[in-house]
């Protein structure tokens, strides 16, 4: 671990040596970096949450119980997947502009990301509607139960992400530098994109 190495060389205690992830000295660096650390840790917890649901899915599917009925998933989920992927690209673009100092473009791409996020949610709701029109509710069969649980859990996280995007756009917290705020939000957003790909793959391959 690099920290203990640097720390050992700074044995006299004159320099600060914080963290696992970097070598910034002094509290100023640490107070910004701690938000990034906190988000990475939080993502660990969220990952475990979705892994637990996924394991439950694997076990329940593996039982080969007669009540499991394969479901034709609404086609809009494909479009939604593309929308979410696009939102990750626009967010990366936005952060790129921020780093380059083009603050106007940064705000524009940030806004596009937010709108794509809202579109994704609208698409998910429409998928729910199609499911329920086809007579598939939460309790209909285990495949549809898992579908609703996965999409609801993921959708709530996306909703939180949209709230964070809006917060940073309109009322960024005092203690966060814009670079930190956008980095924390981006970590979360890309992570949720990856989780969605995992869920969707699970649904279409074996659901």
């Amino acid at each position: 671990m690099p920290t203990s190495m640097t720390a050992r060389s700074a044995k006299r205690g004159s320099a600060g040596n914080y963290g696992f992830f970097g070598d910034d000295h002094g509290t100023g660096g640490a107070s910004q970096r701690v938000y990034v650390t906190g988000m990475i840790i939080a993502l660990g917890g969220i990952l475990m949450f979705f892994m637990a649901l996924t394991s439950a899915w694997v076990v329940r599917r593996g039982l080969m119980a007669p009540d499991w009925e394969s479901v034709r998933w609404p086609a809009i989920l494909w479009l939604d997947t593309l929308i979410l992927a696009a939102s990750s690209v626009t967010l990366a673009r936005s952060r790129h502009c921020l780093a380059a100092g083009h603050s106007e473009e940064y705000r524009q791409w940030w806004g596009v990301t937010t709108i794509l996020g809202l579109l994704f949610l609208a698409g998910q709701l429409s998928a729910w509607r199609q499911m329920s029109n086809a007579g598939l509710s939460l309790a209909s069969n285990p495949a549809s139960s898992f579908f609703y649980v996965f999409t609801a859990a993921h959708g709530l996280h996306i909703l939180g992400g949209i709230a964070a995007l809006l917060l940073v756009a309109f009322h960024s917290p005092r203690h966060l530098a814009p670079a930190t705020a956008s980095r924390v939000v981006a970590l979360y957003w890309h992570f949720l994109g990856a989780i969605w790909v995992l869920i969707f793959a699970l649904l279409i391959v074996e659901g």
Partner: protein
Amino acid sequence: MNSADSTLQASSGRPLGFLRRYLFSTDHKIIGLQYFFLALVAVTVAIILSLLMRFHLVWPAAHLPFTSGGIMTPEQYLALVTMHGSIMVFFVLNTAPQSAFGNYFLPLQIGAPDMAFPRLNMLSFWLTLAAFLVMLSAFFVPAGAPISGWTAYPPLSGINDATGPGEGLGQSLWLVGILIFGVGSLLGSINFISTTIDLRAPGLTLMRMPLTVWAWFVTAILSLLAFAVLFAGGILLMLDRVAGTSFFLPAGLVVSGELEMHGGGSPLLWQHLFWFFGHPEVYIAILPGMGVVSHVLANFSRKPVFGYRAMVLALGTIGFLGFTLWGHHMFVSGMNPYSSLVFSFLTLSIGVPSAVKTFNWLGTLWGGKLQFPAPMLFAVGFVSFFVTGGLSGIFLAQPTLDTELHATYYVVAHFHIVMGVAAIFGIFAATYYWFPKMFGRKMNEALGKLHFWLTFAGAYSIFLPMHFVGIAGGVRRYADSTGAMYLAALQPLHLFMTIAAFSTAAAQLIFFYNFFASLNRGKPVSANPWNATTLEWATTWPPAHGNFAGQFPSVHRGPYEYSVPGASEDFLPQHLPEDASAPHDGEQNHAN
């Protein structure tokens, strides 16, 4: 969220009102105390529940005031079992060692002004309190508290009140309480981990952290990973209860003569999800105690912790292995014997890091200039109970033996000694040890020693005979064991255990008296009354909001430099510069 810097700004501003200061405080020390007092209330409730159970086991026909018709029904007994276990595990063993002492002392010991996210920290506490009230409210709904135990196995827990009283609204409230508690724990662990990673004082490398900090850090990682899984399982169970899904409910289930309209689910799936959380939860309860014990043993042996690196490695190994062996709770579930074998090996292998820790504790004591104030007595008591409880674990880790012992009092004895009593001895050691830092006074020594000996003897008197009851086939969770001849023969042992339980509970009144009387009348002490080395003693009492009054310490050495040859005193505080260490006046240097 709010970074630690802002608390400094807050502290330099105008003084906070009573509400902001003591109730809705973002100060980690106040939040630590809030958790502590919550645990104190919870442990009182849970002990009363256990006394009612012990009473009923010996005098099943006796009239009790709160029961319908005066006599406790088997279901009411099971409700006591459930609530005693749940409250003890979540609101005492999880809350006191980690959330209370961790919150208070982790930032102090790493030289930080506060937790990384103080407002999030406040939210964690309020969620925990809400969870406690919601869970407790299950007692006051018409059908009462749930009867499914703290493990809440479906189908019993997964349907509704058709499966028994308390399984309707009571079970739902219990489950909501657990989910809220889970969120509070997750947020808390994010705070603990981020703080430890990013807010350490200059010079405080990982291998200079006190073992308490290591223990809280590893515990927080376990909390983060385990509670996320419980949360997912809890939501699925809730949906089975209220939304008609069948994640855990099997097909063809007949309850009270009626066919349930669920199908195809797996009750074992819940057991896997639950124990994937539940086993790490055991270590969440015990690891902070291990940290405190290492800390206290070094302090009162006036020696460095023997094998510090091995201690850190053992904590990490126990934490990691803790996630791989949940299946040993399910040996009797009909699992494949090959799976049992793997879980058995993994379980036995955790004996290695546990033995490393025990060996090193004894190594720390060996040849030390031993002092035995109350915290030291409780630390040594912890080691004793940890060894005793660990030894019975070796038997239970073997599927063939567990098949015989699983549903008996042997298991109850095992987990009470290792997870309950040992962890609580850790809490007591921490309370006696850090009371001067928290309240500026010492607890009464004579009462502390009396409390220790009565509790030590009392706890062994309750739980040693329980092993024999279990080996003789005494079945756990039975409200009345006088009906069968072979069980009735065990009644004298039950009587002995009940008397011991009441006596031990009475001995805790000494602790309560000592604690509250010492708040105002304890002997006032200096800033470093135990001549200790770590940073929590490097600030004044009471530590102000922001902890070090702007004068943040830097760290120059390891955490346990006691009796260093050539030094003028037998302890070298971590924040003392190297050149000042030769001729220093302890009182002045570490009280600034």
